[in-house]
C-alpha cells in the first residue's frame, strides 16, 4: 500500500526519531516497500484464530512481593549523560 510522506512524518514523531527533510522521500519509499511485502498477510484466512503472543502460550508468572534487589543508584547514574544530586538532568520541561 502507498503511504504518504505526511504519514511517515507522523509515525516518526510518534517514534521520536527526527528525519531530515532531504531523507523523508527515501524513507517513505522504503517503508512503502516493506508494508507492501507484509500486506500479503491480508490474504490469509485467520477467522477464529486466537492471536499468539508467546510461542509457548506461557502466562506471566507471579512471585512473592518481597524486596530482592539492593539499591544501586550510584552505579546506574555513573553511566548517565547528565546527573545532579542523584537526579537525571533533562532540558527544562515547564517554562
Amino acid at each position: 500500500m502507498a503511504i504518504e510522506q505526511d504519514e511517515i512524518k507522523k509515525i516518526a514523531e510518534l517514534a521520536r526519531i527526527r528525519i531530515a527533510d532531504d531523507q523523508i522521500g527515501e524513507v517513505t519509499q522504503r517503508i512503502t516497500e516493506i508494508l507492501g511485502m507484509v500486506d500479503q498477510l491480508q490474504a490469509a484466512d485467520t477467522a477464529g484464530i486466537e492471536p499468539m503472543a508467546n510461542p509457548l502460550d506461557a502466562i506471566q508468572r507471579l512471585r512473592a512481593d518481597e524486596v530482592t534487589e539492593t539499591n544501586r543508584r550510584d552505579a546506574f547514574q555513573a553511566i548517565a549523560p547528565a546527573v545532579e544530586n542523584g537526579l537525571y538532568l533533562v532540558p527544562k520541561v515547564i517554562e
Partner: protein
Amino acid sequence: MHEQTVAQLAQGLRDKSFTSVELTRAYLQRISELDQNYNAFITVNEENALNAARTADQRLASGEATPLTGIPVAHKDIFCTRGMLTSCGSKMLGNFVPPYDATVISRFNEAGAIILGKTNLDEFAMGSSNENSHYGPVKNPWDTSLVPGGSSGGSAAAVAAMLAPAATGTDTGGSIRQPAAFCGITGLKPTYGRVSRLGMIAYASSLDQGGPLARTAQDCALLLNTMAGHDPLDSTSAVNAVEDYTLSLNKNLQGLKIGLPREYFGKGLDSATGEQVRAALKELEAQGASLVDISLPNSDLTIPAYYIIAPAEASTNLSRFDGVRYGHRCADPENLHDLYTRTREEGFGDEVKRRILVGTYALSAGYYDAYYKKAQQARRLIKNDFMDAFERVDIIAGPTTPGPAFGLGAKSDDPIAMYLEDVYTLAVNLAGLPGMSVPAGFVDSKPVGLQLIGPHFGEAQLLNVAHRFQQATDWHTRSPQAGGVV
C-alpha cells in the same frame, strides 16, 4: 591449540598439555594478528582475560573445575558485561559500560570460562549480513569479499577463523543459524525461554533467544549445558528441567523419522545448495533414519508475520534509548523533544530506524487489528503447522539458507532482498522451536548449512542427530586456513 575443539581443549587443560593462561594468550595473539582481516571483534578483553585465566588455572589445579573452566569464549556484543563496553553494534550504546552482567555471562563466569572479547553484530541484531554495524562490516573468513551472515556475524567469523574456540550468539529470526551456515560452523538456537534473556539487549522479546556457536555439535552441547536453565530474573525463562546435553550425543539414529517440508525445497532454493542438503540427508538415512515428505502449508505467511511482529516489538523495546539514563545523547538539546528526536536520529542506523518506524505504524491506532493482531493470528497458524508435523516425525530438516554467503554490498541497498535471506529460519522463532545449523558441504567453495528443527525442548535430540552426522562426515573439520575447501 587453536585447531582443537572445546572438548579437546578441556581435555588438554586436564592433561596439563597447556595452561589456560597459555591458551588464552594464544587466542589473544591470533586476534591481534588476524582480526584486522575480519573485524569480528568490537572489544578484546586482553588484561582481564589473562587474570581470569590465572584464576581458572588455580581452579583446574584444585580439581574443582567444570568442563568449561579455562576455556576462552567470545560473546556477542549484545550480552551485558559488567565493566566492559557493550555496544550492541550501535552508536547509541557506543559509550555503554553496563553495571551488571547478563545471566548468560554470569553462568560462563561461574563455570570458569574466559571472556575473550565482544563480537561484532548487526546493530541491535537487526540484519542478515553484519553490514548494519556501526563498527563496520564483518568479513567471511572463507572469502573476505563475502558477508559472514548476521546478526551474530562476528561470533561466527571468530569461530570459523579460529580466533575463539566457541562463541555466544542470539537468534531472533535466524541470527545464529544463518551466520553459522555461511561460515561453515555449528550453531544452535534453543527453544524460546531455554536460555535467560536477562541482560541480553532486547530486539523482539517474544522471539529473541541466546545460544552457542562452535565447531561441533558436541561443543554446542557443552556450552548449552552452561547457558540453559531457569532464571527467576527473566519472567519468560522456562522452568523445565535442563538435561545434560552431552549424554545422548551418541545415540543411534535407527528409526528416527525426519520430516522434509516440501516448502523448504521449492523455488527460491539454489539448486546446488539443495543438492548438498539432500546428500547430507542421505547420510542420515544411511544411519537408519527415514525421510518423510511433509508440508508446512502456512510457510508463505512467515516473512510477512515476522516483519510485523519483530518491528512492533522492537519499536517498543527501543523506546528506552532516549538520551537520559545511558548511552548517546545529542549535543546542546533545545528542549526535551529535541533531546529525544535528535538523540535517536544520531544514535540509530538506517535499518534500525526503518524497523522502529514499521513497528510504530503497525501498532498505531487504526492499524493494530490489520497488522499486529493479524500477524499474531498467522503466527499461531505457523506454529500449528509444526505441531501437526511433529505428530508424524521426530525432527524436521532442510536448508538453513536459500544459498551460500553473498558478496559484501550485494544486498545492502535492498532491505526486502535481505529479508528474504531468512525465509527458512524465521518460522522456528515464530513457533519458539529449537533449531540448528550444521556444516553440510560446499557450493563454489562456500559453506552450506543443514538446518535441523526439533519440537519444543528437543535440543538433546537435535544435538544427537548433528553429532552422529559429524561422526560420519568431515565438513565441520574443514577450515579456511587449512585450505579445507573441496
